[in-house]
């Protein structure tokens, strides 16, 4: 939802200065909770800030949506900033001052923009099948070369993935082996990112326990920083 107020040019904004005992975050809150021109000006300034963050995010994800033209990018940024503005204004009371207000507000715009780009980049694409994940595991096992233990572990991994519940297997395979963004999967399965991550977390715990029970030393195979 874009309104004239949200896109008011910066030069129309009121110059509001901080009181002696106020930091910039407290000033933002006071202006956004005020009424009349002071609030309108603060809202317009906040929207400009969110738009900057949304453009930043869409700019760095440019290659994920090569089919979008410049105008589409602008629309996506505008829509992300509008949605983020509503989220920020609705959550002002949640701001606890543990970071600068601008850092706190930015995260809403970045999230709106990143989710929109991921969904755009997967629009019209099917979620890959588990068979593609088995091919990934088989390829990796072949690259283990003469390391028989690693090849054995990867074989066991596949067996244990197949023993997961249908839902756990679907989520784990899509997100960790087939690179489906969790927001995209959440949208397709009509659930939330948080709920899917919980399913993924439970699946991973089950896999770790099953592989450990088969005698594999899991952390010996892990890289330091995934």
């Amino acid at each position, binding site marked *: 939802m874009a309104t004239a107020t949200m896109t008011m040019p910066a030069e129309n904004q009121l110059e509001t200065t901080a009181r002696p005992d106020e930091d910039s975050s407290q000033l933002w809150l006071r202006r956004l909770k005020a009424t009349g021109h002071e609030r309108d000006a603060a809202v317009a300034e906040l929207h400009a800030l969110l738009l900057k*963050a949304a453009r*930043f*995010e869409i700019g*760095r994800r440019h290659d994920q949506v090569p089919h979008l033209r410049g105008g589409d990018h602008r629309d996506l940024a505008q829509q992300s900033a509008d949605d983020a503005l509503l989220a920020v204004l609705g959550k002002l009371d949640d701001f606890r001052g*543990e*970071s*600068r207000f*601008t*850092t*706190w507000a*930015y*995260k809403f715009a*970045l*999230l709106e923009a*990143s989710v929109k780009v*991921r969904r755009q980049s997967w629009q019209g694409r099917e979620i*890959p099948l588990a068979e*593609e*994940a088995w*091919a*990934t*595991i088989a*390829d*990796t*096992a*072949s*690259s*283990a070369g003469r*390391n028989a233990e*690693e090849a054995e*572990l*990867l074989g066991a*991994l596949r067996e244990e*993935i197949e023993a997961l519940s249908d839902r756990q297997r679907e989520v*784990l395979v899509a*997100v*960790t*082996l*087939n*690179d489906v*963004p*969790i*927001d995209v999967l959440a949208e397709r399965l009509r659930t939330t*990112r*948080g709920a899917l*991550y*919980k399913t*993924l*977390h439970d699946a*991973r715990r089950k*896999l*770790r326990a099953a*592989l450990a029970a088969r005698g594999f030393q*899991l*952390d010996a*195979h*892990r*890289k330091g*920083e*995934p």
Partner: protein
Amino acid sequence: MSHHSEKQAPGELLARVLGPGAPELSCEQCFAQLDRYVELALAGDRADEQVPGMRAHLDGCPACAEDFRSLRDLVAVDGSRR
């Protein structure tokens, strides 16, 4: 089509599939703490110690890890312009 057209090292694949294997925040808790964590990280102020479970979550959740990198880089650019 998997994005992993190049062969992965077994350790890399296992890390992606098995996740961090350590106590971690949920996606909602991660989002709630992300701004604080980013500022602590940029200030070099023991972010991992002060926000326990965040590093493990970012290791396990590719989407939250992307959101972390974006916020960190945006705030860093902002700071360098001040």
